[in-house]
């Protein structure tokens, strides 16, 4: 390391860290010293594509399967994530709907779980800023309040989308997504390959292609292969960050520390640092997703221009949330979901129904015998989420009555939605959460714990835009 003392030490280079740094750098002094510790390495998208094409790449040694990074007790529940420069921007699918205003006040509005210590209006300008950075493609009108236009035009509708949009208006919209509908200065246009995990076109937003420039800033020193072990604290202040690098253990003094790894590793670091908040690692989870195929009579569903063409909000917000989970519908443009009957190959719509779930302290993250490997215990879904599925099954035929439906096929719930939420939840006090509304740890006041771990509740919308906006908000309000 260049220095013994840094103004800011950040762990991780994913969305949470990068958006936090982006705002921090805009406010920091010219001689600020910032150290970023990334345990993975730069594994460029171009090299990932070589592997997908069956070609050799020297970078393949940097592949770190998520299964090897955690001790996952419940093998039926999967938690995919990416360990490398850019974190899970390397494997996300680019879905960026905002949360609905009532997602932030579930207790007040519906008597469910807790309210967030912030509301939609607090985040609104930061949503716009994050959308601008990601060059999000989206429609003119949305079910959530929005005071700025999306940077890129909306993706194309299929005939099914057009019919549903006509019936439901702003409750059925082209999905706001960080899969570019037009080429930008840093990305190509999406060509609907529907293999966004490693985009063949480099059309989805990643930290690598973001143009944010945070890691090229002369104030920032980025160290690869650096794994944070724990934090050294005294009098409720983080004094040093202890990490391994190059086979050696290092200790670096820091004025402020920001943990921007995912909730598994943020929790692991906190617990190994002596954090005794009873809720650290508790109540993590994610949404529950299940696929529904809608077989159509004499109607094709072609013409979509991206992976998720549309979002349906018909089962999202409302009084039903007092009894069961909200559901966000994703209209997928899925190549595999074709029919085999003659003349009906494309007569099918594939919907992903995504249900919110509730934080449950029986689901928890803890340490393991290996300092660097968190242990993940996911025991159960809430009846609230499961009841949401039953409600969807009852309501969907009526919702789709404007379409020539032949039959509906409901699949089993999926093993993951690709999200990790909670574990360091945001709250008004340390008695009901781990961090405050600025993502600062209730006990260690020079420690930010960033990312979706801070989510107080787990609404059905994809979390990345919100966690990115939260990072901008936290850095803006704190510096």
């Amino acid at each position: 390391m260049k220095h013994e003392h840094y103004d800011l030490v950040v762990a991780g280079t994913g969305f949470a860290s990068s958006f936090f740094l982006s705002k921090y750098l805009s406010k920091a002094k010219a001689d600020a010293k910032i150290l970023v510790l990334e345990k993975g390495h730069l594994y460029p998208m171009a090299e990932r594509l070589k592997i997908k094409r069956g070609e050799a790449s020297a970078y393949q040694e940097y592949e770190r399967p998520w299964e090897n990074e955690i001790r996952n007790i419940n093998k039926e529940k999967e938690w995919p994530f990416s360990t490398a420069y850019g974190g899970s921007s390397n494997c996300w699918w680019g879905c960026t709907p905002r949360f609905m205003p009532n997602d932030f006040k579930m207790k007040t509005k519906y008597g469910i779980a807790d309210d967030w210590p912030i509301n939609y209006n607090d985040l609104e300008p930061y949503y716009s800023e994050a959308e601008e950075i990601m060059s999000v493609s989206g429609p003119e009108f949305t079910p959530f309040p929005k005071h700025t236009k999306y940077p890129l035009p909306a993706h194309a509708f299929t005939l099914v989308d057009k019919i549903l949009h006509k019936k439901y208006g702003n409750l059925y919209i082209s999905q706001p997504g960080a899969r570019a509908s037009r080429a930008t200065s840093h990305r190509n246009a999406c060509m609907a390959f529907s293999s966004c995990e490693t985009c063949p076109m480099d059309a989805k937003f990643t930290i690598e292609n973001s143009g944010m420039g945070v890691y090229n800033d002369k104030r920032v020193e980025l160290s690869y292969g650096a794994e944070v072990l724990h934090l050294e604290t005294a009098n409720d202040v983080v004094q040093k960050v202890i990490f391994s690098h190059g086979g050696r253990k290092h200790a670096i003094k820091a004025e402020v520390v920001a943990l921007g790894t995912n909730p598994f590793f943020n929790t692991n670091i906190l617990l190994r640092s002596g954090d005794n908040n009873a809720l650290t690692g508790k109540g993590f989870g994610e949404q529950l997703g299940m696929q529904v195929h809608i077989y159509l009579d004499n109607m094709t569903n072609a013409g979509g221009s991206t992976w998720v063409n549309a979002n349906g909000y018909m089962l999202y917000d409302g009084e039903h949330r007092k009894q069961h989970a909200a559901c966000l519908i994703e209209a997928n443009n899925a190549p595999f979901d074709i029919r085999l009957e003659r003349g009906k190959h494309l007569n099918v719509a594939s919907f992903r129904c995504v249900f919110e779930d509730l934080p449950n302290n029986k689901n928890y993250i803890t340490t393991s015998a290996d300092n660097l490997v968190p242990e993940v215990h996911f025991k159960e879904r809430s009846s609230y989420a499961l009841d949401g599925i039953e409600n969807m099954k009852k309501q969907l035929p009526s919702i789709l009555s404007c379409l020539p439906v032949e039959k509906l096929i409901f699949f089993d719930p999926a093993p993951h939605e690709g999200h990790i939420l909670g574990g360091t939840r945001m709250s008004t006090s340390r008695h009901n959460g781990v961090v405050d509304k600025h993502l600062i740890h209730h006990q260690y006041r020079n420690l930010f714990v960033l990312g979706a771990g801070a989510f107080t509740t787990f609404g059905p919308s994809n979390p990345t835009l919100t966690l990115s906006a939260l990072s901008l908000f936290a850095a803006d309000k704190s510096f």
Partner: protein
Amino acid sequence: MERRKFLVLAGVGAGMCLLSPAVYFIAPDTKEFAVKLILKEFYYLKIAPGNVERYVDDFIESNGNDLVSRLKWKTTYYLKLSYHQSDRMRDLFRYFILSTDFFINKTDETKEVHYLGMYSPYLNAVTNPYSFIIYPPETIRDV
């Protein structure tokens, strides 16, 4: 599903027990059954000669020497089962049709169907049959 068919689909061992050993051992290579099944399923398409065979070779290579699949092709053929009763069979058919120019030609059955190489979004130009590349926005009618 009939019990007999269920047992066949439940596993290789069951399938082999239900098939006469004589029939099993004198039967042609299982690859031929995959070819026959595809030609039978897509009887209404004009598939270029030799293209199904090339596809099956690639399918087998890309899936490894999956003995379970190959035995199921054989049992499926003999028992006149359909893809509704076998995910492996459905995959064999689905990957075939996705690996051809059938969708690029907008499912036009009058055009000869050519195998373009094993389905891969990383190797083929247009792999999404629903894509706006094939069906541009101006061709999707308004409502």
